């Protein structure tokens, strides 16, 4: 189990990430990165008046395994993430790369993740359709992040590079539903066609605050 660290992702309302990061650093986390995203609301009433977005912050902390469990416990206790609508946290096994480092393939076999994080990258404007597709296949919600693709410079009258705007959708879902959601997004958004976007999944080893399996979280189950 040596070489596996994790990246802990915490998705909370805007303005909360700093406080969490501060606490995490007291526990020994080295550094964190925060970016802004949009959460989704599922409510007929709010949809009717056009309020389908909530502002979220996504906090990414790299940590060792042990630290990660501690952080989950902290989030659970201090920030009440296990309660509904307080935000979610999940960890994805990642290795912080150093030159010449080798991946420990064996350790990976033992991971046996309970959840997967499905990441879809599409052109700007299609993120909403992605969420719809994911919902139709049983996902609970998703987080949209705005990013840009590494564009190929196009010559205009001005020395103008049009940067392709992208939307990145994160959906965390239980193992059983992953295939269905993936397929639904893939077919609905025609990702098979070149240039329509990509989709990939990452294993999630530990979650906090995911509503679909609260009973498990309250025990603080790992893996």
């Amino acid at each position, binding site marked *: 189990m040596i070489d596996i660290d994790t990246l802990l992702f915490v998705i909370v309302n805007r303005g909360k990430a700093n406080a969490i990061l501060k606490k995490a650093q007291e526990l020994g986390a080295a550094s964190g990165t925060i970016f802004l995203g949009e959460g989704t609301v599922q409510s007929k009433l709010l949809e009717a008046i056009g309020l389908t977005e909530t502002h979220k912050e996504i906090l990414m902390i790299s940590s060792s395994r042990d630290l990660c469990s501690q952080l989950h416990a902290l989030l659970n206790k201090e920030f009440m993430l296990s309660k509904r609508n307080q935000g979610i946290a999940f960890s994805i096994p990642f290795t912080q790369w150093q030159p010449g480092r080798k991946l420990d393939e064996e350790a*990976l076999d033992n991971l046996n993740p309970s959840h997967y994080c499905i990441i879809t990258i599409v052109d700007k404007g299609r993120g909403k359709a992605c969420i719809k597709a994911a919902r139709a296949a049983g996902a609970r919600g998703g987080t949209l992040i705005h990013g840009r693709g590494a564009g190929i410079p196009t010559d205009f009258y001005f020395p103008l590079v049009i940067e392709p705007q992208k939307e990145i959708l994160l959906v965390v879902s239980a193992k059983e539903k992953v295939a269905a959601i993936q397929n639904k997004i893939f077919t609905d958004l025609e990702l098979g066609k070149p240039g329509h976007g990509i989709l990939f999944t990452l294993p999630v080893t530990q979650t906090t605050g995911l509503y679909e399996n609260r009973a498990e979280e309250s025990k603080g189950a790992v893996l």
Partner: protein
Amino acid sequence: MNLVYEKFKEVAQTLLPVVILVMILCFTIVDVDTSVIVRFLIGSVMLLIGLSVFLWGVDLAMNPIGEHMSHEIATSRSIYKIGILSFLLGFLVTVAEPDLLVLGQQIQAASGGTVSASLIVYVISFGVGIMISLGIFRLLRDRPLNIFMAITYSIIIGLGVFVSEEFFAISFDASGATTGALTTPFVLAISLGLSTVKGGRKSEENSFGLVGIMSAGPILAVMLMSIISGQKHIQGTAEAWAPAQGVLGPILSALPAIFLESIVALAPIAILFFIFNFAKFKLAKDEMVQVLKGLSFTLLGLTLFLTAVNSGFMDMGRIIGMELAAMSPWLLIGIAFMMGLIVVLVEPAVHVLGQQIEEVTSGHIPVKLIRMTLSIAVGTAIALSMVRIVVPAVKLWYFVIPGFVIAILLSLRSDPVFVGIAYDAGGVASGPMAATFVLAFAQGAAAVIPTANVLVDGFGVIAMIATAPVLSINLLGTIFRHKKVEYPELEKKEKVPTSHLLEERDMLHKCIIAVVDRGFAEKAIEVAREAGASGATILRGRGTDEHQKVKLPIINIELQPEKEIVLFVTREQVSGAIANSLLSNEQLAGDGKIKVFISPTEAMAETFVVPKQMESEPDPAPAETE
């Protein structure tokens, strides 16, 4: 429910201090009629609802409209088309502004009818159109904003010497009138849209400044008009004032007129959008519905807000001003300062600007800090205006001209993002709250003090409010720059060969996340491509790092360095090579402080060249892939 609650909370937080201050005054030193107090309280509730609804509307409608419009502008290849389109945008939005017509009528009355009101409106709108199109050219061509504004304001200061004090004040008031509640969010959205479409390293600083450029248009136009027509002095006096009677009567009677005004102000933006949507964008039905909802919210919110401010707040401001001025000049100046501190935060555009700052810099520039600076600046500005009303020997240009000269000098040394924010803030701070509540307060004070001229001194307040933020935020930017971690310039990028698409399917993939300091993402992609990566996606964020921690003294706000996160999905075979080459690149490792993370398990990846058969074949479970 989140967003509704958040918006209400945000507005309530800024409105509450104003209500408390006014109530304290009413129950202690100032004697106000009960009906005015009740009207003020009703107005506050209306303002709370109106402003919150308005801000949603802006989120839903203005932002997408601005985005689509700016995309249209930026991607049109002809220089004429860009010029004409942006001129039209500026002209139409301004011509419909209700405040401007009121100003025009005032000038017409004051000049004894030699200059007609509609002429004034057209001249000013023309000025705005020209400035907007110049501003958009500047943005697309990446010319530095600080130089552009330095030239513009030097011309203004130069012209300012030739015009009378009255017209000096009126020209600034004209700029305050054009940057109304509706135009400012719209122009901010255009500017944001343009800079994101354009991209590049300067996209962040390009997101601001267009409002500032636009608000210079009316100043230039009015000054030139005064010089050309030879109009020097205003003969008229402000119309006689009597407080409205009753509680609900004034509110209800103001409502229809303001509703019409709001429709007229919103019309050009909406019509322009519908024409373009019909001809060009062809938005999907969902999106269209969103925009329509947003437009109705904007209209509803704006009407409520303006009615509340006009009928609930104006009389109150006037009475407080009169009573305080009669009591003691020191009290007047002190209360004016406190009023400025809190009133500016209720301006709708201040909220919009704050949100935009947060979006664009990913929270790197604390919005709190900008608000604090604005508060202090406007408080000082209003207090100084009161000094000017009390002491007639103190002229308006004593403050405004040195203010701008210092601001220009500072802007040459200030952080580029702040220069844009600073000039925008000038237009943003002189919004409807300043034009009604604060103006009425100043006019009330001027009416009591025999040496003051109600009309001229009233205009002067707006000029002061427009100047102070430019100065103070440029100052903040200068401090920020010295505190901030410097980002080294990137070396000239060589042409990157077009990415080779992945050909194999059923490949094992890895996900690589690289975190670098701002500005190094392009470099990282270049390095990764040489090592065999294909596409990449860049996210913008902020981070913390022990070595890069910077704290502002006294107010204890931490500045977090900006980061870029690059996301690669690569084939397994090359992932190690990519990671190694990313880390071994000296520039990235040294200056970019790169961190590379690799997901060690196979990511089930469907890259975009996967053929059709994928659909028929269910995804293999992860265990089987290995």
